[in-house]
């Protein structure tokens, strides 16, 4: 049973490596091209065929989530927090606990998005994360910043802060 499964995975891997992913380009170059794709298109690329899915199964493709203003992701993900959250969660799943950096400087929603995501993020994702840029439109109050810093003690956080809220 195990042998058959290993053989199947091996077969898929062989298929992935032998497929003409992007014409006759060398594998390393194809990897580089896929790595440069915006996050939403990279996720869609996994649906093209089993070979591409296998290729993009490598967690190293997903360790850096870029939703900065120049990320190239479809703007509908940057102006709807639900879609943005879904995208971020999908990337976390693909990273398999290897998430290293998240740049949300391009998102435009005014919800405390970063806290919403952290509430649902796994402990492994939080533990591996080393850099986080929070969305600029929503400044966090002191209590929220404290929650953020406590949830990510090993992560460099960059965010806007609002203090002394008037009643």
């Amino acid at each position, binding site marked *: 049973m195990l042998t058959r499964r290993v053989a199947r995975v091996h077969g898929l891997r062989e298929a992935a490596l032998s497929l003409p992913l992007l014409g006759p380009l060398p594998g390393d170059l194809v990897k580089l091209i896929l790595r440069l794709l915006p996050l939403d298109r990279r996720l869609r690329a996994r649906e093209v065929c089993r070979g591409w899915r296998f290729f993009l199964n490598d967690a190293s493709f997903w360790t850096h989530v870029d939703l900065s203003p120049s990320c190239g992701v479809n703007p509908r993900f940057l102006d709807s927090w639900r879609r943005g959250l879904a995208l971020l969660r999908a990337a976390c799943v693909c990273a398999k606990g290897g998430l290293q950096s998240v740049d949300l400087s391009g998102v435009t929603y005014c919800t405390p998005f970063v806290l919403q995501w952290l509430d649902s993020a796994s402990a492994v994702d939080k533990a591996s994360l080393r850099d986080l*840029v*929070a969305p*600029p439109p929503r*400044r966090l*109050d*002191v*209590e929220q*910043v*404290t929650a953020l*810093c*406590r949830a990510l*003690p*090993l*992560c*460099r*956080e*960059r*965010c*806007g*802060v*609002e*203090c*002394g*809220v*008037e*009643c």
Partner: protein
Amino acid sequence: MLRAVEALPLLGCEPPFALLTINDLIVYFVEGGEQAFLNLASALSGHKGMEKLFIHTAPLGARATVDALLDAAISAGIKDACFGGCGLTPTALPALGRLLHSPGFASLKVWNGHQDAAIFESPSMPVFCEALRNSKSLRRLWLMGVNLWADIAAASQLIAAMEGLTALRELSIEGNCTDVTPETQRAAGECLARFIACSTSLRVLNLANNRLGDPGMTPIFQALGRNTCLEKLNFGLVNGEHISAEFAHDVVLPAVRATTRLRELNGLQWVDADDDADEEDDEEELLPELQEVEDILAARRRADEEAA
């Protein structure tokens, strides 16, 4: 109620904030005397990586506090500073000048919120104007509600200092009402016209609620034809102000036709909020000359979109 003092551990990178970088900080002061400012200034000066600082409703009238806070902002490398409702006085001018002079400084927004407080008065004006004139990176300048036209000579000096700013993209002097005498309106309009005519970088100019009247607006419209960069101009006429059909026909329309870059001209027709007419009627009341102006500008915007 949270207080400004709560920002201190964050700025000081005390645990659990050791790895925190504050990109932009808004501080509302609801209490705290001079010592609160000095504490904030002390913490701010040690925080690196911050770009924007917004101080709101903080009494920054005393020279010692404003000097400490602005010098801390300079040392923190702030590029974008806002002071809203802080009651800045002429004593702040030397420190504001130092802020303008700091490397890479890009945006200064000041709105005092009450008309009686004039900031731009001698004898500190030359220092501030010199810093403004020498600024290479200033892109946005808002001087709102600072009673700019209280001293026409000082205002002329200030606006003249902006003439050589090659990086300046946006200027707002909203909420600086003239005293409504034709002489003041004309003098204000003429110094703005000189600035508009020689500016090579300004894209947005906001003159809302300045009560410039026909004597002030005429030289501004005449200068528009010599300007090749201004894209948005806002007059924002306020309650009781309006322009006549004759002014629209003789001054506004020819000026807009003569421009090449202008894409938006706002706030020329003020509509009474108590008017019983609904929105449709308001649109019908638009002067035909202003409608033509809007058509010209809309055609330019469409052409831009098609070209893009």
